[in-house]
């Protein structure tokens, strides 16, 4: 029934040996215990991240992508949240088995994170410099003076003008874009192995979003950080990520390299998602005239506390049959390096055998 049992016969992708993976997440389950019942926010998610790779996790709100990110750093609010099972191995060390103090040494040092709202995510009563220096003092054993010098350096790296001046300023004195740059400076100050970016550009204007995405990509190349990019924007995914995981209702429904995924989506949800967004680029190539309807995904995202027995997407899926409604589909490799959880993907969209 569950993803794991379905996973067992399927070997882990042989392309990359397991040890090469920087971060390996297996069967991660994070549940929330609420009045409405058990909210299975993350329900058996596994993925691996190689050094210097950018992995995007896409999905709509409530699909569990942000909770996945927070689970990686063990920042789930307890209660009501609990990591029920699974392992998160960083360089082979299971983070879920670590003590709180050991975990603390990892946060901000080996794995760091940037958030959606740069305004609220920075401490309003501390200078930018101090907030950057703090991580360095915490993890790098620098002297205060060194740490501040490095803070200025970091601001320069994230292309904030006049870093010597800015280092003394408070978050509210910066514009939205600048704040997100400062956040990135904090996150990258210790040269982490993994950067988790949770919707880093959603709150920003389009032109600023472009700046920030450029910056992330550029810095990733320069510093060699692996990035987990959490987003709902397929455009951002297409332009930034190498590999993509699509989540729906707390579970992975599809995973592939970015080109493969966009070219041949194997899950009806992914397909629906792609068809439902208006696309600017199509305008330029071909002539479009008159009103053209977008393809809808009917219905609404199900409540995580009351998931249907079978495939969670079945109620909204145009292709769902009885089996879909009754039983959760196994998560299988449909094509080389392309996994999906759908009973009918092979017959509909052409799987391994197609």
């Amino acid at each position, binding site marked *: 029934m569950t993803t794991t049992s379905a996973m067992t016969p399927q070997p882990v992708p042989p392309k990359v040996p397991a040890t090469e993976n920087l971060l390996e997440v297996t069967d991660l389950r994070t549940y929330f215990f609420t009045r409405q019942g058990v909210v299975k926010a993350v329900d058996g998610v596994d993925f691996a991240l190689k050094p210097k790779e950018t992995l995007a996790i896409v999905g709509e709100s409530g699909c569990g992508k942000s909770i996945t990110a927070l689970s990686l*750093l063990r*920042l789930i609010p307890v209660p009501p949240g609990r990591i029920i099972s699974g392992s998160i191995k960083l360089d082979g060390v299971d983070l879920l088995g670590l003590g*709180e103090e050991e975990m*603390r*040494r*990892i*946060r*901000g*040092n080996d794995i*760091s*994170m940037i*958030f959606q*709202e740069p305004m*609220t*995510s*920075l*401490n*309003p*009563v*501390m200078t930018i410099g101090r907030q950057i220096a*703090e*991580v360095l003092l*915490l*993890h790098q054993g620098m002297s205060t003076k060194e740490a501040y010098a490095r803070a200025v350096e970091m601001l320069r790296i994230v292309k904030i003008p006049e870093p010597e001046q800015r280092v003394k300023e*408070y978050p*509210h*004195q910066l514009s939205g874009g600048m704040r997100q740059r400062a*956040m990135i400076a*904090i996150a990258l100050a210790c040269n982490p192995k993994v950067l988790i970016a949770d919707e880093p550009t959603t709150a920003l204007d389009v032109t600023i979003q472009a700046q920030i995405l450029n910056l992330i990509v550029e810095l990733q190349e320069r510093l060699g950080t692996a990035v987990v990019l959490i987003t709902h924007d397929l455009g951002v995914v297409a332009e930034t990520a190498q590999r993509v995981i699509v989540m729906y209702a707390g579970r992975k429904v599809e995973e592939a390299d970015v080109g493969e995924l966009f070219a041949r989506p194997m899950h009806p949800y992914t397909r629906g998602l792609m068809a439902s967004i208006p696309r600017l680029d199509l305008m330029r190539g071909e002539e479009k005239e008159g009103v053209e309807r977008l393809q809808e995904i009917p219905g609404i995202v199900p409540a995580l506390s009351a998931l249907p027995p079978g495939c969670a997407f079945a109620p909204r899926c145009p292709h769902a049959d009885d089996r879909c409604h009754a039983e959760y589909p196994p998560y299988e490799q449909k094509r080389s390096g392309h996994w999906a959880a759908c009973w009918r993907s092979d017959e509909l969209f052409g799987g391994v055998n197609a």
Partner: protein
Amino acid sequence: MGAYMIRRFLLMILTLFGMSVLIFVMLRIVPGNIVDILFDSAGMVNPDDKKRLEEELGLDKPIVQQYVTWITSMMKGDFGYSYVSEKPALDEILPRIPVTAKLAALALFFSVLFGVPLGVISAVRQNTSLDYFLRVVSLSGLSLPSFWLGLLILMAFVQYTGWIPIYSDQPRGFWHELWLLSIPAAAVGFRASALIMRLTRSSMLEVLRQDYIRTARAKGATKQSVNYDHALRNAVLPVVTIIGIEAAFLIGGLIVTETVFNIPGVARFLVEAIRWRDYPIVQSLVMLIAVVTVVVNFLVDMAYVVLDPRIKYES
């Protein structure tokens, strides 16, 4: 910034002016006047004598004229004469201020000393048994009438030590005075510290929910650093306000405490002056309290400007 301060200052003056009118009118509504009371002590009323006395005290004049006389002479620094003691109002009030001020300062000191750290602990350990215990303690602080508490303390002292910790104007040295003041200060400070503790707790909890706390944790900051460095710095801002307001409002609590512990401070003097309908004293005292309250609020606002970078750099 400068303009903001001046604006606040002018509003403050306006409030005080309004206060002066309010208090003046209110006291004139009060049934009975000082003349009635003065006669009461003699157990008689002679209408002729009464009229003469009213004239002597200027109480026969129209209320507007009385007000104008009062406010203009107050501007000149003349606060009038106490009807009862026939001494200048200032001579009556000024010597009493240090007594109350010391008591209030001590109570405030206690309340901050206990209120802030316990509030933080309570918030950090939210929903633990320690938290519940501290919340019950702080709530009882808000629930016990302070005069009752004071009385129980007095009773206990006399019962078990044979000594009574009431005020003496001739203390035997600094420590004795401190000790004498500490007991009523603790009685009245209990409430204030409960208030500060609760506010610190809720302010901390509010701050601990903020995104930047998650950021701090994601940075790998230690629990101590998250709680005290990141959270407390933000949480103290509203606490500063309440401490400021409390500083002025302690006077309310002191009224009953001074009565129980027989401390001749301004707070009890006010009750006494109201009872005596001693207008010059009541008016001056109320204005004094209003000035203290308003000035403290003004200072708190200014402190906010200093403490909160968000305000400092705005405009």
